[in-house]
């Protein structure tokens, strides 16, 4: 969670510069990131680029800023470019509308949160992120880290991604109010397929072995973690209608 007071100061600076064109400024927290800002400009604000330039001249905080016209609010529910997810490889978009609507903080102007619609098919985000893992985890985080002997990094990245994938699977079941810490238990509670749950448990046990002083043992642990992760991806990919009661 960001410092709301500092965000409020930023909002004040924006309003002082282009307040007449801005309808609303809202902060959204996020379970896997620091959250971001949605700056809604009036549809009749005219040249959006000049507003954007003024906003960024106000010393914008280092979090995502979605600057859009009121009529463009629907974009917040769309998937997007996986290329831009590096280096963190965490996609804010799947949870964004939920956390904006339910936990967002209006910093200025009208509360337009009810006008933000949720994604129509949460499964799209799960499939997109599985693809992002196939493209970027394998290349950069797995091969790239293994070749440098960064075995602990492989484990921590796989841990992060498995939690995020479980959160996306939960989203397909309607569960958006998660944290990285609560996600595994919720996944075990609500997801129907036993196999990915077992793969997570196996990984969870394996990561306790991370940090062994013996390099070859660390390497073996990292290799096994990669195999569990690949099987986890495969299982989630093949699953259909896996929401339990």
């Amino acid at each position, binding site marked *: 969670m960001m410092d709301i007071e500092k965000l409020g100061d930023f909002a004040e600076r924006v309003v002082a510069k282009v307040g007449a064109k801005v309808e609303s400024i809202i902060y959204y927290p996020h379970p896997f990131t620091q959250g971001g800002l949605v700056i809604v400009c009036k549809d009749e604000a005219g040249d959006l680029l000049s507003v954007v330039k003024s906003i960024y001249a106000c010393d914008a905080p280092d979090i995502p800023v979605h600057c859009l016209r009121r009529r463009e609010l629907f974009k917040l529910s769309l998937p997007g470019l996986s290329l*831009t997810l590096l280096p963190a490889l965490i996609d804010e978009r799947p949870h964004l509308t939920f956390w904006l609507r339910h936990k967002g903080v209006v910093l200025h102007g009208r509360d337009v949160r009810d006008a933000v619609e949720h994604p129509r098919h949460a499964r799209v985000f799960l499939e997109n992120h599985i693809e992002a893992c196939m493209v970027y985890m394998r290349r950069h985080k797995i*091969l790239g880290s293994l070749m440098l002997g960064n075995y602990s990094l492989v484990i921590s990245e796989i841990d992060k991604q498995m939690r995020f994938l479980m959160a996306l699977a939960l989203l397909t079941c309607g569960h958006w109010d998660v944290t990285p810490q609560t996600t595994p238990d919720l996944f075990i509670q609500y997801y129907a397929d036993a196999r990915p749950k077992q793969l997570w448990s196996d990984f969870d046990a394996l990561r306790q072995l991370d940090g062994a002083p013996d390099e070859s043992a660390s390497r073996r642990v990292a290799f096994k973690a990669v195999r569990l992760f690949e099987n986890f991806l495969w299982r989630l990919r093949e699953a259909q209608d896996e929401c339990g009661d």
Partner: protein
Amino acid sequence: MNVAIEDYWKAVDGLVEDVRRMDQEASSVLLFGSVARGTVTPGISDIMDALVFLPAGVLEDEERFDQCLEIMVEACKHLSESGLPFHPFNYWFLDETHLLEAMFLATNTSARSSKVVFGDDLGSQFGSNPASYFAARTAFFDMRRQFHQMSIYLHEGELSAAEREMVIYVLRMASKYAPLLACIALNIWPDVVGALAALQEALPDLDTDLFLKLRTVQEHPDTMTDSEELKDIITRLMNFLEELNDRLLSRLRTNDEWWSLYDALSRGDLPARS
């Protein structure tokens, strides 16, 4: 280190040699990127844009999987020691050939953008899923939003060395991907080589000439020392993205209309393969 185009092909040969050590576990190696296209800029272009395809069954056998992974890690080490700008290649399983990134599907199947350097030509099996197509269609909006951040470089005065480096990096990325993403937003699915021509044909009245300027940034980044010239390119690119954004919104205006694209893709209404 002075490098030549031949060094890039030596690196490819080295990768193939390493892959051969997998004892027939690897089915194919697909090369894409500037080496495959024959557009290498020595010392600037990086390696290794390649996909190594492994049998699906490898994953079920710990020993086989570990052996493949071991060889791929060693291959990456060899490539990193080549002295060329380097990033790791990728691996893919044979039961995933229908799950390539939709954004690059045409690139991965086009003879001018990709090249099989080992094993089977799997091109006829390549495909993408509806979610990937849909994300590719809407990725343009994300690119535009990301590009808004470039406003911070439009301040008065000279760009610092660090700022110039960042601007050139982002513009090089834009040169690589912006024409393709703009085409896909318009439901045109070219390979990376044909993206600019396709865009110019689709939008003859927009400032697509700026992508020729971007190509100079891409190929000769060291010549881009003038701050005002870089700022001008940023401004032109932002204007281009804004104009295209407005055109897209004049066609599809609502959440329902955009998500209906996904519904159509899910029903099998996929873009035709060229």
